[in-house]
C-alpha cells in the first residue's frame, strides 16, 4: 500500500534525493581523482537503486532524470549519454524486481551489480562510438565495468539500509518501511 503523502513532502523528498545523489557523486569524484577508480563504487547509482526499490515503478523517470542531473554536475560526459546510461541501468535493475525483492540484500546487490555494470559499460561504449574514427571495444568496456559493478554491489549490500535512511527520503517510499 502506498503511504499517503502530500505533494509538498514529495517535492522535498525529490529535492533531497537530488542533493544526496549529487553529494555522493561528488565524493566519488574526489575518491577517484588520484586513482583510475576501478574498485570505487558508483555511489550515486547505488542510492538510485535503493530508492527505486522502495519507490513506485512510475517514479522511474524522475529518479533517472535527477540521477542524471547529479552526475552531469560532477562529470564531463555528455548529458544525453548520462541520461541514457542511467535509464538503461535502472531499467536493468527494475527488470530484476520481478524476480527478486530489490530492497532485500540479494535483490539490491544483484540489481546494483546489473545497473552499475550496464552504466559503466554504456558510458565507455558511447565514448568509443562518439570518437571520430574510433572503433567500439565492447570487451574492454564490459571488462572495465566489472570492478565498478562489483564494488557498487558490495556497497549496496553493506550500505543499502543506511542509504535508505538518509534524511528526507521517506516521502518517496511507496509503502511504510
Amino acid at each position: 500500500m502506498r503511504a499517503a503523502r502530500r505533494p509538498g513532502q514529495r517535492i522535498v523528498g525529490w529535492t533531497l534525493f537530488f542533493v544526496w545523489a549529487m553529494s555522493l557523486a561528488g565524493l566519488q569524484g574526489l575518491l577517484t581523482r588520484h586513482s583510475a577508480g576501478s574498485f570505487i563504487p558508483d555511489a550515486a547509482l547505488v542510492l538510485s537503486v535503493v530508492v527505486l526499490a522502495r519507490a513506485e515503478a512510475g517514479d522511474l523517470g524522475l529518479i533517472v532524470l535527477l540521477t542524471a542531473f547529479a552526475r552531469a554536475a560532477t562529470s564531463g560526459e555528455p548529458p544525453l549519454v548520462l541520461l541514457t546510461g542511467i535509464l538503461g541501468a535502472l531499467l536493468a535493475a527494475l527488470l530484476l524486481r520481478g524476480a527478486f525483492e530489490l530492497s532485500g540484500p540479494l535483490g539490491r546487490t544483484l540489481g546494483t551489480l546489473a545497473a552499475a555494470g550496464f552504466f559503466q559499460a554504456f558510458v565507455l561504449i558511447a565514448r568509443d562510438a562518439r570518437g571520430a574514427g574510433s572503433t567500439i571495444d565492447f570487451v574492454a568496456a564490459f571488462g572495465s565495468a566489472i570492478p565498478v559493478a562489483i564494488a557498487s554491489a558490495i556497497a549496496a549490500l553493506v550500505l543499502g539500509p543506511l542509504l535508505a535512511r538518509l534524511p528526507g527520503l521517506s516521502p518517496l517510499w511507496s509503502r511504510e518501511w
Partner: protein
Amino acid sequence: MLSWSGSRTIVLAGAFVLAALALRPFPPVERAVDLLFVPARFARELLRPLGWFSTREVRATMAHADEAFAAERESSRQLLAAQIEAALPLDPRLRENRAFLVAEVLERDPDDSDLLRVRFPPGAGVEVDMPVVQGDAYVGRVREVDRRRAGEGVVELVTDERHRVGAAVHDDAPEPAGLVVGGLVEARARRGSAFLLGARFESRPVASGAVVVGESAAGPRAERRARADGFRLGKLRVLSDRGRSILGVETAFDYAHGLSAVAIVGGPELATAGPLFADDAFDDARWTSARIALAGDSSPRRRTRHLSFDDSARVEVGAALGLGARFVGRVVEASDGRAIAALLGDPALEFGGVAVLDGRREPIQLGRLRSLGFDADGAVLLEWIAREDLAPTTGRSTGPARIATAAGDRGVPAGLWVGACVLPEGPGRHVLRLVPLQDPAGLLRVRVRLAPTMLEEGP
C-alpha cells in the same frame, strides 16, 4: 496514468531511441538535452565546499608552481629559441639577400591537412605568395593573410594538389633541367617515411638528381616566389607502375608531422624583429583565471573538470590549461563563461608534443600525443606513434626526455612543460609513461588560454 507494466513497452522503446541518439549524436537533440541540463551547472556550485578538504594541498601546489615559474619559463624560452633556430636555413647561401620571419603553426585546416594556419608578428609585411621553408627544405607558400585575425595566415603545403612550384634538377649536365613540382603522386604518396611529390619535366628529361626550387616566371608575384630558389625539395625518382613511368620527387621531409615552426621568406624589407613567437606563451593578457567547481570526476577513468570564469572570457574549444609554465589540459567544451576541460590522463586529451632529450638542446618533434589514462601513482599514459625519421639530424632519439607542448594546436602555445618520460626506441606505436610536472588531479584554480582578438571585417 499508465501502470509500469502498461507503459513498459513505451519506456523500452524510448530507451532504445535514446541509446541510438547517445551513440550516434544528432545535434538538435544533443542541444535540447544540453539545454535541459543547464540547471546542473548551477547545482554544481553546491559542491564547492568539498574543495575545502583539499585547501592545504592546493595551496602547497600553487606555491610550488609559483616558485618554479621563473626557471621553467626560462627553459621554455630556450626550447622555443632552439625551435626557431631549427626553422632557419643552415646553408649560408640560402640566407643571402633574404629575410626570414619565423611563424608558429597554429593548426592544420580540419578539412584539408595540406593547409596550415600560422601566426606571425602582426604588421611584419607578410604577403600572399611568400615562400615558406623549414631549415633548408621548401615547405610551401603563403596562400592567404587573414584580415580578421591580425598576424594570422594560411600556408599551402607543397603536398597540396593545387600547389605548383618551379624546380631545377641538378645532374651532371652544366645546366639544370626544369621541372614543375606539386601535390603528391597518387597512391604512392608515401614510401616508408618519405613523401613522393608529383613532378613533370619542363625542359629536357633526366633520370635522377637533386631537386631544388627554381622559379623562372616573371612579374611581382614570381619575384616573391623566387625567394625560395635553391631550397631543397628532394631527389628525382622515376618509378615504374604497371609498365608506366611515374616521375616524382622523393623527400625525407615529413610534411605530416613536425611542422611546429616554419620560416616565411621575404626580401630584406620583411620585418623580422619581434618576440620569439608572435603567440607568446607567457603573455598575461592571453590567459584568464578559471575556478574548478569540483576537483574530481564521478566517471571512472575520466579526468574532466567543469570550469567557471570570473569574466566573460574568450575561451575556445582546444584552449590550453596551465599553471605557471606547466601544461595540465585542454578545454573540450566551451559556452557562456563556462567550460569543460580534459586534464592530463583523460582519454579525450590530445596535443602536439616535442621532446628534449637529457643533455641535448635540439627538440624532437613527436607529433600527436594522445592521453590514454593514468596510474595510481599519478603517471600519465600517452600514446605516441613514432616516425622512422624521428631525429635524422640529432642522431639519438631515445632515452630520458622532457616533454613540452608543440605549436600546431590552436589554443595551445608552444613551450609549456608537460612532464618527463623515457622515449623508447624504434618506429611505431608506443605508450609513454609520463611523470607530469604538475599533477592536475587536485587543482581548484587554473589558467586558461584566451582566443586571440578578432578584428572588424574590412570593406
